[in-house]
């Protein structure tokens, strides 16, 4: 099979002062007609740079220094900007990660898709309208006629991504580049979009270069896989080969870090409930004095859950399901409208602000974003010592304790004098964890603590959480959208949808015999659910490179 698009020995230089001299080093990839090639790697592996290099869309100061990118016998790297403009859109289509920012908010969907025809073809107005309608039908947008006249903000995320796909495929390009096209989408929407890309690719025989960080997505959609690490392709082969019999140690480590969807054998949690959430509701009201603009959103409706002592309760759901609102109600960052939150004989929902401040000793939170959750102007040690100091501990003692906590969460105790920006994402998340543990809380509420992390770092943090829970006898409420993560760490799982807890039970039960149709739909949407990551003897112990994450950022 001859390649439609081939990248030959491509090297892309980074500007001096970057963390490495080359964004891409000697990358050779061939993309055949009628296949999906997944380029997979962690952040900074150069997978998005590859797409940029093909289209001549590299960031400023970054340029290709060697190699060729051949499309139909012509080298794209030697083309002028003008020549490239004729290629982009017409010969190579592109889908981006965030459809909201990739679409112009001030123009209708139909207008933007029609622009593809206006630029590249001599078609008339009526003909273009017909084509656009046909395309919107092809991507299965409900009510294509209305979608054509809609503005981007009037469509849902999934529908916007469908419109983007329609635009990318408008001129039937032979090559489609998709850069993390489903990362910003909910899992059920993601499943639909993946199915759509597969369907259109097969119907039109397009060659798809699919960039992703998610091995589940790879398992779902790839014909062939290329694994990238620090700008190099370390392994390439058929999807089945790479996923089930990875050869390169880095690939093995990455795949070993993917949490399997099957929950481990259940841990017996017999403790009394330490935290009871009873009939908690939270409603957001928006709008001014005039009733016309008022909007009422029931973020959490009558949620009742309980957390056994020493156990982990997972709350899973898609965006807008109310899981984060519930977490914030539990720690009283938000005040619930009704219901009670019982912890150690006290109803947190009824406490005054001052009483709640004292009660924070017993319940702490770990946040999602490792970059926003630490005050950039405070030293790491100070951040960890703050909690005890607020509760009356002396400064010297609190700082000494911070060093102990650093050791506990696997950081260098001598790093307490550094500022947050000197740490990597995974290390920052450990600092956040140390800060929460400093008060020795009975209950830890973790709001998506690993979803901003690369898969190998994610595995480490999850191991750390499980280990700490064991050692310190912590009880944990774990909020996540990722069912794989939930399967590995939670004893019980509650599924939320539109503010309502639709199902709750032991993890194994929820995963093997889901009762509610929504739970069934969620489980059916997990990408790569039929694939079980192989556990190879050498990779299972400790991933090779990821574990080398140094105690301090370089």
């Amino acid at each position: 099979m001859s390649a439609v698009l081939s990248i030959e020995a491509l090297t892309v230089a980074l500007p001096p002062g970057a963390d490495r001299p080359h964004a891409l080093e000697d990358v050779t990839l061939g993309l055949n007609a009628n296949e999906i090639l997944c380029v997979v790697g962690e952040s900074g592996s150069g997978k998005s740079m590859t797409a940029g290099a093909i289209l001549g869309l590299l960031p400023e100061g970054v340029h290709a220094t060697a190699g060729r990118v051949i499309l139909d016998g012509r080298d794209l790297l030697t083309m002028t900007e003008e020549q490239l403009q004729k290629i982009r859109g017409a010969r190579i289509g592109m889908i981006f990660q965030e459809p909201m920012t990739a679409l112009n908010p001030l123009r209708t969907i139909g207008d933007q898709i029609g622009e593809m025809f206006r630029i590249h073809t001599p078609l008339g107005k009526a003909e273009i309208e017909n084509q656009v309608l046909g395309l919107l039908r092809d991507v299965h947008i409900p009510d294509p006629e209305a979608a054509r006249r809609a503005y981007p903000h009037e469509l849902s995320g999934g529908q916007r991504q469908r419109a983007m796909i329609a635009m990318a495929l408008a001129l039937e390009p032979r090559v489609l580049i998709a850069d993390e096209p489903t990362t910003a989408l909910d899992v059920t929407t993601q499943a639909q979009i993946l199915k759509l890309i597969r369907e259109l690719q097969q119907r039109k025989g397009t060659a798809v270069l699919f960039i992703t960080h998610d091995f589940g997505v790879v398992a779902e959609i790839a014909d062939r896989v290329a694994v990238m690490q620090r700008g190099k392709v370390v392994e390439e082969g058929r999807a089945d080969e790479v996923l089930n019999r990875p050869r390169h140690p880095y690939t093995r480590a990455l795949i070993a870090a993917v949490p399997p969807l099957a929950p481990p054998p259940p841990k017996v949690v017999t403790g009394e409930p330490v935290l009871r959430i009873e009939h908690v509701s939270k409603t957001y009201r928006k709008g001014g004095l005039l009733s016309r603009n008022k909007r009422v959103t029931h973020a959490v409706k009558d949620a009742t859950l309980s957390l056994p002592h020493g156990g982990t309760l997972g709350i899973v759901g898609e965006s807008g399901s109310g899981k984060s609102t519930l977490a914030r109600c539990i720690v009283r960052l938000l005040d619930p409208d009704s219901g009670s939150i019982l912890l150690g004989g006290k109803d947190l929902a009824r406490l005054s602000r001052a009483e709640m401040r004292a009660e924070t000793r017993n319940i702490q939170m770990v946040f999602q974003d490792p970059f926003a959750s630490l005050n950039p102007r405070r030293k790491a040690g100070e951040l960890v010592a703050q909690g005890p100091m607020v509760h009356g501990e002396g400064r010297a003692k609190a700082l000494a304790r911070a060093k102990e906590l650093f050791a506990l969460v696997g950081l260098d105790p001598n790093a307490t004098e550094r500022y947050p920006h000197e740490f990597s994402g995974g290390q920052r998340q450990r600092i956040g964890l140390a800060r929460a543990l400093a008060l020795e809380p009975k209950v830890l509420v973790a709001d998506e603590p690993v979803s901003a992390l690369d898969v190998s770092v994610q595995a480490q943090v999850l191991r750390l959480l499980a280990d700490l829970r064991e050692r310190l006898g912590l009880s944990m409420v774990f909020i996540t959208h990722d069912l794989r993560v939930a399967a590995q760490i939670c004893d019980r799982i509650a599924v939320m949808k539109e503010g309502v807890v639709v199902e709750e039970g032991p993890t194994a039960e929820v995963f093997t015999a889901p009762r509610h149709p929504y739970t069934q739909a969620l489980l059916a949407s997990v990408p790569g659910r039929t694939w079980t990551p192989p556990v190879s003897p050498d990779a299972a112990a400790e991933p090779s490179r990821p574990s080398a994450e140094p105690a301090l950022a370089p």
Partner: protein
Amino acid sequence: MESLKRIGKSPTAVIGLILLILVIGMALSAPYLFPRDPLSLAGRPLQWPFANSRFWLGTDTTGRDIAAQIFHGARVSLLIGLVATALAITIGIVVGAVAGYYGGVVDDVLMRVTEAFQTLPNFLLLLVLVAVFGTDIKTVTIAIGLVSWPASARLTRAEFLSLRSREFVQACRTLGMRDIQIIFREILPNALPPVIVYASVIMAVAILLESSLAFLSLSDPNVPSWGNLIGTGRSVLRTQWYVSAIPGGAILLTVLAVSLVGQGLNDALNPRLKSR
């Protein structure tokens, strides 16, 4: 430290810094170079600069030494600038921080008050304050501070609005910190850089406001301010223009120095501009 290095790299900021140091030097050396009261009669009135070696910048309409008034005036202008700016920034930060952090009704009330101050031309308001409370130099300084705070309040509020939803603020709340502590010890240091930069603008305007008052003979006549000197020269502007022009030049250079340093601070403290 890094910020200081970046200031050193920008030529305009260095020029501003040199000018500012010169003005500060003038203010500090005034009592030694001109030990006599600068407002006392020194010689024949309206001598041109360089005409008499004793008065190298000449004398004004009443025979006072212009050089002495310029040097002593630097003290007055800088002091008024600094005190009024400190006052304006303090009010602005407190109002802006409280409005931005709490939002809702508190924000609405505080912002309407701020707007009330902003919609009145601040010089007019200053005239009213001075007319009511008198032209003592302390009163004038406080009055200038009182009319200059709204912009810094809005700036602080904008910073707080974006910072308060950051997770580190929520983390502080879950640790049980009091609001006061969160506002002033956690958020404020992050919100401060643009406000500090804006302080240079307030300082420049404060100096100008005092001069304008003095020009209208509404400032304290018993201090040797540059504005007073310009006011004195008003009556002989067409023949002995130097009486007004010399202090005018001093004001121009000082305001320029302060704004250049402010610009340099902006480039140095604003991380979004670092790469340029």
